[in-house]
C-alpha cells in the first residue's frame, strides 16, 4: 500500500456505513444532475444494459427463425429488420460505448489519482446526448425498424429501402457526438490530471488502452457522422453522392463508412485488452510481462486500425491494387495484437494464478480473441476472402472478437470492479458457473457458424438449404445457453446490491490506486491526493486478498 497517503484515512470496513458517492446524496435529481464521473458511469451502465437487452431480443428472434430452413418465426422482411436492429443496437449503443463509458468513466480518474474527469459537466452532457441517440433508435425500432443492415450500404439505403433510414442514421449521428466528447474528456484527463508521481510509464495498462481508444473516438467518429449526414442528404434531397444514377459512387460510401467502422472494432477491443491486462496481473499476482510493449502495442493498434478499412471491400469492386495494399496492412494489425497475447501468456508463466470469476473471463478472452484474430487473417487474404466474404464465416469471426473477446472482457471487468463500484461482493461460485456457461454457450453458438460459412451459407438470409439445418440448430441451442449465461450474472449482481457481503477496500488484493480508497469510494475518490512512488503492478508489495482464493 505504499502507493498512496490515503490509507490511514480509511475508516474500518466493519464500522458504520461511510459516506460514499452512492449515499452522499439521494433522489432522482441527484442522479440526473450529477457531475460525478462514478455516477455518470452507472447511468451509462443502466443505459447500455437496456440496449443490450433490446439487441439480445432481436438476436434471439433471429436464432429462433433459423431453426428451420424455411424460417420458423418471421417473414423475410421482418428478419431483415431483426438483423439490422441487432447490429445497429449492439454495435453503436452497446459495444462501442460499453467499457469506455462505464468502467472507463468510473476508473480513469481513480486509476490516475484524480478527483474527477477534466470536464465533469461535459461528461454529463455526453450521457444525455447518448441517451437521446438511444431513444431515437428505440423509437425507430418500435415504429417499424430499419432493414439496411448496420452498414447502411448505398444505394439500397439511399434509394430503395422503404424503412426509416434517416432517423436510424440520425440516432447514430447523435450518439457519435457523445463518443467524441467522451474521447476529448479522456484524453485531456489522462494528460492533465495525473497524480504526483503518476508518470506515463507508471500508468495502469487500462489507461493506455483507454487513451488509444479515445484517440480513435476523436479521429474516427466525425467521419461516420459526416458519412451518415451525406446519406441523409442523398436520400432526402437526391443530391448525387453515392448513387451512380445521380452521378455518385457507391464505393465512396463504403470507404467513408469503413474508415470509421473498422477502427470502431478496435474501440471495442482496445478497452477490453486494457481490462484483461489488469485481470491477468491481479490474478497472477505478477507485473505484466513487457509492460512498455503492451502499452505501445495499444497505440500501434489504434494507428494501424485506420489503414486497413479496404479489406471490407475486396469483392465490392475495389481496385485490386488498393486491395493488395489493404491486405498487407491488415496483416500488420496481427503483430501488436500478438504482442499482447504472448505477453499476457508470459505473465501467467510462474504466476501465482487463482481462478476467481474475473480471471475465468480473462482466460476465456485469451482463447476466443486468438481464434477471432487468427480467422481474421483468412478474411484479410485476397484469395480466401473471395470464398468467405459475405458468409457466416465472417459472422462467426467478428462475433469471436466482439462478443467472445469484448463482452467477455466487459463481464470480467464488471466482476472485478463490482465490489469497488457497489461496495458489495457477489457469490463467486455462481459467478464462476456463469462464466463457464457463457464460454460454452458462446462456442456452441458461433463455432458452427465458421463451418456454415466455409460451406457457403450466406449471412443475412432468413432461409437456407436444408443440409445446413443441423449446424443451425446447434447454433441456436448455443444461443439459448449463452442467454442463460447472461441472465445469471444479471440476477446475482442485482441480488448482491442488497444481500452481498460488504467488500473491503481491496477484496482481491490487487494493486492500483483505485484499490487504496474505500469501497464504494467517496465522491472525491481520495480524501488526500495520492502520491505515487512505484511502478504499476508491483505485486511484491501487494496486500493479501480478503476473499478466499481458489
Amino acid at each position, binding site marked *: 500500500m505504499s502507493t498512496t497517503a490515503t490509507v490511514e484515512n480509511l475508516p474500518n470496513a466493519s464500522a458504520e456505513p461511510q459516506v460514499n458517492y452512492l449515499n452522499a446524496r439521494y433522489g432522482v435529481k441527484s442522479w440526473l444532475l450529477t457531475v460525478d464521473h462514478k455516477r455518470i458511469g452507472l447511468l451509462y451502465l443502466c443505459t447500455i444494459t437496456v440496449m443490450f437487452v433490446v439487441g439480445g431480443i432481436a438476436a434471439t428472434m433471429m436464432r429462433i427463425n433459423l431453426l428451420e430452413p424455411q424460417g420458423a418465426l418471421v417473414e423475410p422482411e421482418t428478419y431483415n429488420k431483426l438483423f439490422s436492429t441487432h447490429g445497429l443496437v449492439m454495435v453503436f449503443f452497446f459495444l462501442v460505448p460499453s467499457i469506455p463509458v462505464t468502467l472507463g468513466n468510473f476508473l480513469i480518474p481513480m486509476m490516475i489519482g*484524480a*478527483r474527477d474527469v*477534466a470536464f465533469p459537466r461535459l461528461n454529463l452532457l455526453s450521457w444525455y446526448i447518448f441517451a437521446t441517440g438511444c431513444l431515437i433508435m428505440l423509437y425507430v425500432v418500435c415504429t417499424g425498424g430499419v432493414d439496411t443492415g448496420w452498414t447502411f450500404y448505398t444505394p439500397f439505403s439511399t434509394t430503395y429501402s422503404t424503412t426509416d433510414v434517416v432517423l436510424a442514421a440520425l440516432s447514430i449521428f447523435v450518439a457519435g457526438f457523445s463518443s467524441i466528447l467522451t474521447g476529448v474528456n479522456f484524453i485531456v484527463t489522462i*494528460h*492533465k*490530471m495525473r497524480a504526483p508521481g503518476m508518470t506515463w510509464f507508471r500508468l495502469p495498462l487500462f489507461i493506455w488502452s483507454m487513451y488509444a481508444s479515445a484517440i480513435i473516438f*476523436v*479521429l474516427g467518429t466525425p*467521419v461516420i457522422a459526416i458519412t451518415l449526414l451525406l446519406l441523409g442528404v442523398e436520400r432526402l434531397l437526391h443530391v448525387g453522392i453515392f448513387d451512380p444514377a445521380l452521378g455518385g*459512387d457507391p*464505393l*465512396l460510401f463504403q*470507404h*467513408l463508412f469503413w*474508415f470509421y467502422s473498422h477502427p470502431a472494432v478496435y474501440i471495442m477491443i482496445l478497452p477490453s485488452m486494457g481490462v484483461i491486462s489488469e485481470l491477468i496481473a491481479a490474478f497472477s499476482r505478477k507485473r505484466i510481462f513487457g509492460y512498455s510493449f503492451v502499452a505501445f502495442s495499444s497505440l500501434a493498434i489504434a494507428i494501424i486500425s*485506420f*489503414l486497413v*478499412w*479496404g479489406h471490407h*471491400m475486396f469483392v465490392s*469492386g*475495389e*481496385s*485490386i*491494387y*488498393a486491395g493488395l*495494399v*489493404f491486405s498487407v496492412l491488415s496483416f500488420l494489425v496481427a503483430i501488436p495484437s500478438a504482442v499482447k497475447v504472448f505477453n499476457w501468456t508470459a505473465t501467467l508463466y510462474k504466476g501465482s494464478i487463482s481462478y476467481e470469476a474475473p480471471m475465468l473471463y480473462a482466460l476465456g478472452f485469451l482463447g476466443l480473441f486468438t481464434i477471432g484474430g487468427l480467422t481474421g487473417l483468412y478474411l484479410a487474404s485476397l484469395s480466401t476472402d473471395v470464398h468467405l466474404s459475405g458468409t457466416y464465416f465472417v459472422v462467426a469471426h467478428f462475433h469471436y472478437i466482439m462478443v467472445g473477446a469484448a463482452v467477455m472482457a466487459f463481464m470480467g471487468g464488471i466482476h472485478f470492479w463490482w465490489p469497488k463500484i457497489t461496495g458489495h461482493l457477489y457469490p463467486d461460485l455462481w459467478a464462476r458457473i456463469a462464466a463457464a456457461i457463457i464460454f460454452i454457450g458462446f462456442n456452441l453458438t458461433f463455432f458452427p457458424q465458421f463451418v456454415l460459412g466455409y460451406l457457403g451459407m450466406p449471412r443475412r438470409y432468413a432461409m437456407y438449404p436444408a443440409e445446413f439445418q443441423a449446424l443451425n440448430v446447434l447454433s441456436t441451442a448455443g444461443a439459448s445457453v449463452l442467454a442463460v449465461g447472461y441472465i445469471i450474472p444479471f440476477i446475482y449482481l442485482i441480488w448482491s446490491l442488497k444481500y452481498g457481503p460488504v467488500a473491503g477496500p481491496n477484496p482481491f488484493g490487487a494493486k492500483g490506486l483505485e484499490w487504496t480508497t474505500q469501497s464504494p469510494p467517496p465522491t472525491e475518490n481520495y480524501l488526500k491526493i495520492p502520491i505515487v512512488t512505484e511502478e504499476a503492478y508491483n505485486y511484491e508489495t501487494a496486500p493479501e486478498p480478503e476473499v478466499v482464493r481458489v
Partner: protein
Amino acid sequence: MSSHSESAAHGHLMFHEHVVPVSTYLAVFITLLIATGLTTWIAFQDLGQWNLVVALAIAVCKASLVVLFFMHVKYNKGLSRIVLIAAVFWLGIMITFTLADELTRHWQINPQPWVGTIVPVVRHLLF
C-alpha cells in the same frame, strides 16, 4: 478544477489564456462572409477543370481562419497543434487511400509476369 486551484495556490498559474480583441474576430468573420460570397459567385462561373480546385482552395482558406482564430490554434502551442496536425494527417490518410482505389480501378487486372516485363528492359539496356 481542483488541480488548477491548487497550482494557483502554489503560485503557478497553469493556463495563460490569450485574449483576442473583438476587432480581430470581426475581421475574420467579415473575411469568412466575403469568402462565402466568393464561393457562391464562383459556383456560377464555368472554370472547367479548375471548378473543384478553386472551390476547395477557398474552403481550405476559410477552414484555416476558423481553426487559427476562432479555435485559438494560432495562440496555443504544443498539444493543441499536435491534435490539429494529427487530424489533418488522418484526413490525408483517408483521401489518399480512397483515391488509391479510385485511380487504379481501371488498371489491368491481370498484369504481365515480372519476368516478361523486366527481361526485355534489361536486354535493351545491356545489348
